[in-house]
């Protein structure tokens, strides 16, 4: 068959697309509210980040305010708190990655070895539970348990003749308490995804290894861990992309004037300068800086993972 001229094929193609769209017009109607939602509540604010390069004047609105270039970014980079914020945000992010990431994997591998059905279910039920506590309640519990006068932890310390520790107001304790309470709350929940991956491993591999005389440890090391490696990699990429994205909610609640030195992170700073001091442009600039770094981190880690021949997000 002779090839058709380009104009004809492109016409045909356009025709086919139009037909495909028309055939399913009801589906597009269904999608419409969702698409409108994403445009209004996600893409419109993205358009609003231009505020970071402007001096916001309320009466003129975002697009009418005058451009000022990188003024707000320079002010942020030159300020004395810049390094403190970066150090804290990065410190908490890395600490969380180093401790909070491997523990759910280990927990899943351990739960997976429990052959006793009832105990297996029981462990899962109990470890998932704290995930459903709200951040406010969790921080409330932390402050109750760690209170210097009446908290159970300090009562035990005093029982053994130690001096009570002011966990919540001493800056050097902040990051540890933050990360460890997160592990306590989420390790069970985060392990579900690995348990799911483990249940997908072919049991024949284990049988074959057992016949060959492999021990439990060897089977975990050579079958289970490689089996869930793709899942681990995907989650690691996602985690790495949010190293600087330390959530506002918990830090904000755990923050007080005495531990500020190690608890002030970019997101709480944005809240303070934007919402409390109403420096809209400056806060937007700081926030944008944070989002851009996160996005670059995500893309970089994903790129490295893909290059290394492993799994990647895209």
């Amino acid at each position, binding site marked *: 068959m002779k090839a058709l001229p380009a104009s004809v094929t492109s016409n045909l193609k356009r025709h086919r*697309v139009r037909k495909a769209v028309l*055939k*399913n017009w009801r589906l597009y109607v*269904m*999608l419409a*509210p*969702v*698409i409108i*939602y*994403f445009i*209004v*509540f*996600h*893409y*419109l*604010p*993205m358009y*609003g*980040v231009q*505020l970071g390069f402007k001096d916001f004047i309320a009466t003129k609105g975002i697009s009418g305010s005058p451009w000022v270039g990188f003024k707000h970014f320079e002010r942020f980079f030159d300020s004395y708190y810049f390094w403190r914020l970066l150090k804290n945000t990065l410190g908490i992010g890395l600490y969380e990655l180093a401790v909070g990431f491997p523990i759910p994997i280990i*927990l899943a591998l351990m739960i997976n*070895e*429990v052959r006793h059905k009832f105990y297996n279910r*029981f*462990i899962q039920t109990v*470890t998932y*539970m*704290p995930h*459903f506590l*709200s*951040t*406010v*309640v969790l*921080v*409330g519990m932390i*402050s*109750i*348990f760690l209170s210097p*006068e009446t908290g*159970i932890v300090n009562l035990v310390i005093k029982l053994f003749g130690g001096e009570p520790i002011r966990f919540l107001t001493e800056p050097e304790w902040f990051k540890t308490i933050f990360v460890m309470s997160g592990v306590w709350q989420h390790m*069970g929940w985060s392990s*579900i*995804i690995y348990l*799911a*991956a483990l249940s997908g491993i072919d049991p024949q591999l284990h049988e074959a290894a057992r*016949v060959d005389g492999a*021990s*439990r*440890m060897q089977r975990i090391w050579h079958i289970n861990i490689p089996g869930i490696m793709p899942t681990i990699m995907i989650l690691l990429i996602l985690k790495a992309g949010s190293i600087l994205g330390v959530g*506002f*909610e918990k830090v904000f*609640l755990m923050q007080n004037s005495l531990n500020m030195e190690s608890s002030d992170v970019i997101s709480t700073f*944005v*809240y303070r300068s*934007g*919402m409390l001091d109403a420096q809209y442009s400056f806060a937007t600039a700081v*926030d944008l800086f*944070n*989002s851009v770094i*996160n996005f670059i981190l995500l893309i970089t880690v994903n790129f490295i993972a893909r290059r290394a021949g492993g799994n990647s997000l895209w």
Partner: protein
Amino acid sequence: MVKRAAAVTRQTRGDRVFEWVNYTLLTIILLMIIYPLLFVISASISNPQEVNSGNMWLLPKDITFIGYQKIFQNKEILNGYLNTILYTTLGTSINLVMTILAAFPLSRRDLAGKNVIMALFVFTMFFSGGLIPSYLLVKNLGMLNTVWALVIPTAVSVWNIIIMRTFFQQSIPVEIQEAAAIDGSSDFHMLLKVILPLSMPILAVMTLFYSVAHWNSYFNALIYLTDRDRFPLQLILREILVQNQMDQMSGSADAMTDQILYAQTIKYAVIIVANLPVLMLYPFLQKYFTKGIMIGAVKG
């Protein structure tokens, strides 16, 4: 043959040691998770003096319900509770409708442009306009200090769209949809009469995820609401648990020392009351968790 089977089931000494260590470690983890929860429950119904002096360490001592009484006398807590119930029901309903409206068309193989639309959604998971532009938007839409500020900006989660779409694709046979289409079902009819009745497990998971998120969130309320009458429970809890503002709580008639004592009991009791609905739902929905997360994991 028999010999080989025996070899398969027989545990070596190393394996037995492994088993023992594994069970011990898991039991320690279990106790570490369960102990604080039990402690809070016991402390909420114990005499505060016993709790503060460390005499109560596991089981309730000198049982009293004074903390719960104080809570139910407090108008702000009750009002916050009602507000949270409203925000959670309304918010979750909107979430479910929006998630279904997005997931069903995107699950269809014959939808032109579905990858572009999906990319448009997924991008928002990794990049956002940030706090201030979002705040100004909500403000300009006139939603400050209204219910809408809490339910519309969080109308749908991309992650849950992905989970539900994957469920539609994998758990509902294409043949069923084709048969319905041949019978002359429109897409809407098909969704309501064929797809949704087959999707109860995933709808249960979504309901749980969304409603817990609404029940527990305080951030949107913190930035969008200034009117105390509209505060959800979590903001009131924040004042009690984190900021220790309980002046009006215990009532001025009590002596100072009593106030301090009650303050502690109230904290424990309020934790229980706040989490009661979630804890009550938990056993019923637990069997669906793994399913929901597994579906999400397949697609990643």
